[in-house]
């Protein structure tokens, strides 16, 4: 009977690794791919240089003063005007000039510190939460943050309660309004969405029917219609005394809209959980509530993270629709400020700027979701 020697382990052959192989497999694997590669390179060649010229090399940067979240940065004594910017490149001093509008809308200039504090608190939140991850009382800290943060933010921004000058929601605008609508929309709709998803899977016929009807109705209607309904139709049904805030009505509309989408996303996650998990949870005697909170939802939500974030990102972008019911978010501010007679013909700068801000925020969100996925991945850990 033959006996074989132990084989030594080797590295793969050099032709099977490295940059050349990568180029070969990814860019030039067939003649169609090679043509596409060259076509893409040509497209980039005709697009990128003019864009860079407009944005950077021919652009004006240093006129006037920039007010960045309360910090004044002075570039030159010379006032920025439409004329001392050339017409060849971008006029970024226009953005400095309008940055206040893009950020806060019509928020009173004397009260800017209030939204700034909220921005700072929000930033702080992202620092605190990872820090207390291993702290003994992390649940208590998290819970108090969940309650305190929105409360403090609301008091700061809206004022009132005899503490601060009230600022009407009509005056909120720009990035501030965009962030408020998006975050309130996402945070309020999420638990509703989870409940609707569970409702749709429920054994209780009435709850199942209600959840299904609600989800299917909302998903069959465009967000614009819901915003119109909330803004113009709803007040018709209410007695005149019960007229409530326009922003609040929009928020309710958006939250209900998003809840239906979250519900379907979460339902997808719920369906991916094997029946054995339900049976094991039942067999050890957990109640319906415990079973869902401790066993099913943690797994289902984890699977759904990419879709939850995807859905949140589309909601964030959809918030720009509030323009049509007369709320001025960041994008609406571009249109509004471009009507300034001293700054005619500069909306391109505005749109490019808003695009960059949106991209920065949404790209951060999508990176963060990837991080969450990795953190919660216990299934394939080795």
């Amino acid at each position: 009977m033959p006996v074989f020697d132990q084989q030594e382990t080797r590295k793969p052959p050099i032709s099977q690794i490295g940059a050349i192989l990568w180029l070969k497999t990814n860019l030039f694997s067939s003649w169609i791919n090679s043509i596409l590669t060259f076509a893409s390179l040509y497209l980039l060649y005709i697009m990128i240089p003019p864009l860079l010229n407009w944005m950077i090399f021919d652009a004006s940067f240093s006129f006037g003063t920039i007010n960045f979240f309360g910090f004044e940065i002075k570039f030159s004594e010379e006032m920025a005007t439409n004329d001392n910017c050339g017409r060849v490149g971008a006029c970024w001093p226009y953005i400095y000039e309008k940055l206040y509008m893009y950020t806060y809308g019509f928020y009173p200039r004397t009260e800017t510190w209030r939204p700034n504090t909220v921005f700072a608190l929000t930033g702080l939140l992202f620092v605190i939460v990872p820090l207390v991850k291993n702290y003994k009382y992390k649940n208590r800290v998290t819970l108090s943050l969940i309650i305190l943060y929105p409360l403090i933010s609301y008091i700061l921004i809206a004022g009132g309660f005899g503490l601060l000058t009230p600022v009407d929601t009509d005056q909120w605008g720009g990035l501030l309004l965009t962030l408020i609508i998006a975050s309130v929309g996402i945070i309020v709709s999420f638990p509703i969405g989870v409940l609707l998803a569970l409702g749709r899977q429920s054994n209780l016929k009435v709850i199942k029917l209600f959840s299904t009807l609600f989800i299917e109705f909302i998903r069959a209607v465009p967000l614009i219609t819901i915003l119109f309904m909330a803004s113009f139709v709803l007040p018709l049904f209410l007695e005149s005394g019960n007229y409530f805030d326009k922003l609040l009505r929009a928020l309710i509309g958006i939250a209900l809209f998003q809840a239906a989408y979250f519900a379907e996303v979460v339902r997808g996650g719920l369906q991916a959980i094997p029946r054995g998990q339900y049976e094991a949870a039942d067999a050890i005697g957990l109640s319906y509530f415990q079973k869902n909170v401790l066993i099913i939802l943690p797994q289902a939500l984890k699977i759904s993270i990419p879709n939850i974030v995807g859905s949140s990102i589309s909601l964030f972008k959809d918030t720009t629709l509030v323009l049509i019911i007369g709320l001025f978010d960041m994008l609406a501010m571009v249109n509004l400020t471009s009507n300034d007679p001293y700054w005619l013909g500069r909306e391109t700068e505005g749109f490019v700027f808003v695009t960059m801000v949106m991209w920065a925020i949404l790209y951060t969100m999508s990176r963060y979701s990837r991080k969450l996925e990795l953190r919660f991945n216990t299934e394939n850990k080795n």
Partner: protein
Amino acid sequence: MSDKNTNIIEISELNKWYGDFHALKNINLDIKEGEIIVVCGPSGSGKSTLIRCVNFLEKFQEGSILVSGTELTDDAQKIRKIRSEVSMVFQHFNLFPHLTIVDNLTLAPIWVHNETKQEAREKALKLLDRVGIKDQAEKYPNQLSGGQQQRVAIARSLCTNPKIMLFDEPTSALDPEMISEVLDVMIELAREGITMICVTHEMGFARKVANRIIFMDDGQIVEENDPENFFNNAESDRLQLFLNQILTH
């Protein structure tokens, strides 16, 4: 073993249908405290369905099941009471993949039996030690081999101090070299006097520890006997055929 003569499980006239399919036909079975019952039979014969009725994972349409004197009904309170006395080990382990091994074990004691985290954890580690995987306590289920996972599952079902253990083909999903480590744990449990109902094809195990072996086919109990007579003096043709099929290899 079956020294006490009280019946801990009484199944009478049990009938179950899946839609039109008659899955269990007139099952009558009494099990005494401390008895080890092995249920075997061809696939689709209703063995798993039968033991899943005992902790009400499956609803049945006719008949009654009494578990330590409590009758199984739709009443959620009663079901939870029974499930705290009856635990189950599944073919596919069904560990909770998002929780560490020790958290898998302490879940029911903490949430169902109101034990403190400290107590539950100590007991869990003791049980893990008993099934030989204490050093894996902080890992996640998918980092363990199949045999280890099934031993964790057994430890998890012991965590609530059950009177009755149900095993639903606990070794069928395991690689052959891992079967014996699970069977060893089960044999040890059987010797400690806990009531066990095992659906399994491990005839060596059945011969070694069972008090009674039940053969099911086509939704009914065809034959039941002590191991000695079960293997050597099979009365029905169907059992004879079944034994020939599984014992000739």
